[in-house]
C-alpha cells in the first residue's frame, strides 16, 4: 500500500528534516507515526500528501511511485490536519458539501458523516459557533468524505473529550475493518497503543524503532506482576509486592499473598509506549 525507502527531505533554508527513513504499510493497517514536535513527522506526512516536492528516496503509494501520480492521487487519499481548517462563515453541511463537490468519485452524504460523529444537530450551524472539539470531529469526517483507500490523520483526537475521543477511535478501527489503510501521526502514546497495528518512533528525522505496540511492550517491559494488598485487614495500609511472571503459578510467596490478604490491585509490569519511547530515544514526547 505504501512503501518508503531512504526518504530524505531538506527545506530550502537547509534544514534537514527527514534523514533517510524506511518503512512500509500494508493494506488495512493502522500505522502510527510517533515523535515529539520537530522530529520530522509533519514533514514526512507533507511529502506523502504531496504538499512538499523535491524529496530524495523512493516512495510508492497505492502501487505507483509518488512522483508519477497525477491529480487523481487525491481521489485515493484523505487528509485530516492537526488543526481544524474550515470556512468559519459556512455551516458544517456547507463545508462538507463544498469539498464533496470537488471529487469525481463516489462520496458519502454529509448528513451521514455528521451523524457518525454526533454533529447532526449542528449541521446547519456556522463553524464560527463550533467548539474546537466539534471542529476536530468535522475535520476528521471530511477526510472520509470521498471514501479514500489511504487516510492520513494528524492528531485526530486532540481537543476531544473522552467520549468523542473514543468515538473517533472506533471510527478509525471501523475504517480499518472496511479495508482502508491509515497513517496516523500523533504524539499521544495511549491512542497509538489502543488503535495502531504498528508504530514507528521518529526523532531528529530518523526512525529509531518500528514494531507493533504489543511486541514493544513485551520486549521492553519487565516480566513481573505487581500486587497491592492489605497485610492486616482492609483498615491497614496497602503494601506492594512484585513477583516474576515466569513460574507464577508455582510461586508459593505469591500464592500466600493471594490466599491470606485482601487484594487491592494486580498488574503486569509491561512498559507503556511512552516508557519505551523514552528508553529508546532518550527523549520525551513533549
Amino acid at each position, binding site marked *: 500500500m505504501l512503501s518508503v525507502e531512504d526518504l530524505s527531505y531538506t527545506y530550502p533554508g537547509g534544514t534537514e528534516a527527514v534523514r533517510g527513513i524506511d518503512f512500509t504499510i500494508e493494506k488495512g493497517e493502522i500505522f502510527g507515526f510517533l515523535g515529539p514536535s520537530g522530529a520530522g513527522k509533519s514533514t514526512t506526512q507533507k511529502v506523502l*500528501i*504531496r*504538499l512538499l516536492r523535491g524529496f530524495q528516496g523512493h516512495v510508492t503509494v497505492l502501487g505507483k511511485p509518488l512522483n508519477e501520480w497525477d*491529480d*487523481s492521487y*487525491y*481521489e485515493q487519499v484523505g*487528509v485530516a*490536519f492537526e*488543526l481544524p*481548517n*474550515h*470556512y*468559519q*462563515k*459556512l455551516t458544517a453541511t*456547507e463545508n462538507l458539501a*463544498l*469539498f464533496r*463537490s*470537488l*471529487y*469525481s468519485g463516489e462520496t458519502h452524504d454529509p448528513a451521514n458523516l455528521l451523524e457518525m460523529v454526533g454533529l447532526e444537530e449542528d449541521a446547519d450551524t456556522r463553524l464560527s459557533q463550533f467548539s474546537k472539539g466539534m471542529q476536530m470531529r468535522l475535520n476528521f469526517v*471530511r477526510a472520509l468524505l*470521498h471514501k479514500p483507500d489511504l487516510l492520513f490523520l494528524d492528531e485526530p483526537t486532540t481537543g476531544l473529550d473522552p467520549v468523542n475521543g473514543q468515538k473517533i477511535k472506533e471510527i478509525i478501527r471501523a475504517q480499518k475493518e472496511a479495508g482502508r489503510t491509515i497513517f496516523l501521526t500523533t504524539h499521544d502514546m495511549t491512542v497509538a497503543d489502543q488503535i495502531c497495528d504498528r508504530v514507528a518512533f521518529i526523532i531528529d528525522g530518523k526512525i529509531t524503532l518500528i514494531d507493533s505496540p504489543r511486541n514493544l511492550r513485551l520486549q521492553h517491559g519487565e516480566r513481573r506482576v505487581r500486587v497491592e494488598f492489605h497485610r492486616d485487614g482492609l483498615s491497614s495500609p496497602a503494601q506492594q509486592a512484585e513477583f516474576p511472571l515466569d513460574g507464577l503459578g508455582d510461586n508459593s510467596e505469591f500464592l500466600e499473598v493471594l490466599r491470606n490478604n485482601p487484594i487491592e490491585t494486580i498488574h503486569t509490569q509491561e512498559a507503556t509506549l511512552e516508557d519505551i519511547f523514552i528508553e529508546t530515544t532518550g527523549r520525551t514526547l513533549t
Partner: protein
Amino acid sequence: MIGTLVVKDIKLFVRNRFFLIVTALGLVLYPIIYFLIPDQVDESLGMAFYIEDRESALYQRLTDEPGDYVLFDTEAEMLTALQETGDYFVGLSLPADLSAAAARGEAVELNAYYAPGVPAEARQIFHDVLVLFANAVNPETLANLTRFNETEFVLGNDLMGAPLSLRDRFVPLFLVFIVMIEIFGLATLLNRDVENGTARALITGPLRLHQFFAGKALMGLILAFGQLLFLSAVMGVLGVSTLLLLTTLLLGSFLMVGTGFFVAALAKDNTSAMAWAIVFIIPMVIPSMTVLLPGLSTGWMEIIPSYYFVDSLHRILNFGAGWADVSRNLAMLLIGGAATLAIGTTAIRRKF
C-alpha cells in the same frame, strides 16, 4: 471546480458583515452623491460696480449695455451683495475723479473687492484687465494702443459652452474608489484561505493550486467588474463608447485583482492585510484627484498603475476618446495587472 470556488467565495463575501456594509454603502452612497453634485457649470463671471460719478461716460455706457455685471447705488450695498449672494467674483469701486485723473496721467486709486475663494491667477488676470481698461479710458494712451488680429485654436474638444461639470469629473473618482475598496476584500479573503489552512485543505483534494488562484482571481474580477458595471449604469455612463468603456472597466478590475494578490502575499494575517491594503489604496486613488484638480497632475503620477485607469475613464467619458486614444493606457493596465498578479501568486505559493 473553479465555479464552485467562486460561488463559495461570493457566499463568504456576502456573509462578512464588514465587506457587505462597505460595499453596499459604496453602491448606495456614491450614486446619491453623484446626483447631488451639480451637473452644470456657471461660466459667467459676475462683476459688481459702484461708480461714484453717475454723470460719467462709463456709468452711462454700463447702464446702456447690460452684461455680467451689476451697478450698485452705494459701495456698502455692493459689498453686502458681494459677501452674501456669491453671484460676483469681484466688486470694483470707481472714484469720481477716475477719468480726470487718468487724463492727467496720475495714478488712480481703485478698490477691488474679491469674493473669498477667487484664486490668485484670476485676480492677476482681472488686474491686467483693469490696466488695459485704464489705458482704454485714457485718450493719450488710447491713441497708441497696439492692435492685433487674433486667431483662436482650441486643442482637443472645444468645451466652450459645454464645460465639464463637477458631476462629470466625479465619475472616474467614484469608479476608482469602488474598485479600490475591493483590493482589501480580495486580499483578506485570499489571506484567510492561506492563514486558516483552508487553501491547504482544498489542495490536498482534487483541486490544484493554479485552480485555487484562478478561482480567487475570477471572484475578484466578478466582484469588482460587477460593481463598476452597476455604478456605471446608475450614473448613466454605460452608453458612452460602451465596448471601450467595458474593456477599460474590465482591465481596471484586473489591476485590482493583481494588486489584491500582491497585498495578500505581503500580509502575515488579516490585520496586516488591512494595513497593506491601505498602503496601496491611498496612492492608487491619487490619480483620480487630478481629474478634480487638473493642476495636481504631474509626470511622476504615471508610475501609479491606477493612473492609466483614471486617465482612460476621464478621456472616454469626458472627452469622447476612442480606442486609439487610450490604447497605450489599456496596455499599461493589462501589464500592471498581469505583473502584480504574477508576483502575488509566486509569493503566495511560498506560504504553502
